[in-house]
């Protein structure tokens, strides 16, 4: 017996829900970024699972989308963490509940 597509999809759904939990419940900006990264990674697992279990195309579309999504997640992490540092300089805090104005 080998794992079915359902197993991969449920593992991915669990990872997505844990990322959502981190993004919604924690009040620390870095935790929220970690949660968003986990949700993106769970979506990548879905792409790879559907590539492996679906019909084989040439070029491999699922693998390509996963690679591009990893690159975009890296860009998102760089900008997000830069925003955390810039906001920390201003407010001396990383609690998102205290950030209440856009003006510098």
């Amino acid at each position, binding site marked *: 017996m080998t794992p*079915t597509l359902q197993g991969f999809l*449920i593992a991915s759904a669990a*990872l997505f829900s844990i990322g959502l939990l981190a993004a919604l419940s924690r009040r620390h900006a870095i935790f929220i*970024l970690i949660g968003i990264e986990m949700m993106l990674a769970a979506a990548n697992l879905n792409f790879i699972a559907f590539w492996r279990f679906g019909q084989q195309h040439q070029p491999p579309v699922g693998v390509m989308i996963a690679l591009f999504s990893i690159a975009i997640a890296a860009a998102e992490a760089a900008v997000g963490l830069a925003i955390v540092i810039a906001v920390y300089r201003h407010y001396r805090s990383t609690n998102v509940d205290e950030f209440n104005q856009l003006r510098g």
Partner: protein
Amino acid sequence: MNTGAFIAIAIVTLSAAMAAATLRKLMHAALSFALAIVGLAAFFFLVGAEFVGLALVFIYIGAVAVLIVFTILLTRRDVEKDHGFKWGGVVIAAAVFAGLTWSILKTQSTAIVAPQIRALTVKQIGQALMTTYVWPMQCVGLLLTAALIGALLLVIEEKP
């Protein structure tokens, strides 16, 4: 594909992700996040997408986890304070997970085993990147450059 390996990888990945979401100490959470990414890369190795698994390890652990650790160290003065925890998020996450699991289990066409495929080589990926996906790849390169310059501009100290 081996069911035992699948279950072991799933347990490691999900418990590391849970630790990353719930641990009080920020540094422990960041290291648990790196462990969860290793587990996810193991999933990719299991299904035969080795190149994506390696890219995931290089980019997430080599770049993103290190960036997170640097940010934690740079905002250190605030780390000791407890920021609280909202229980509403737990309810929403559990509801989302229940809905997704219900719909996955109800869809009969997902209860299939993996077909036999020829191994995916790095040469195939490189050829696809250089022919079909050459414009998306250039755009991602431009996006990464713009994002890194933007990140630099955001954190540069303003001279008074």
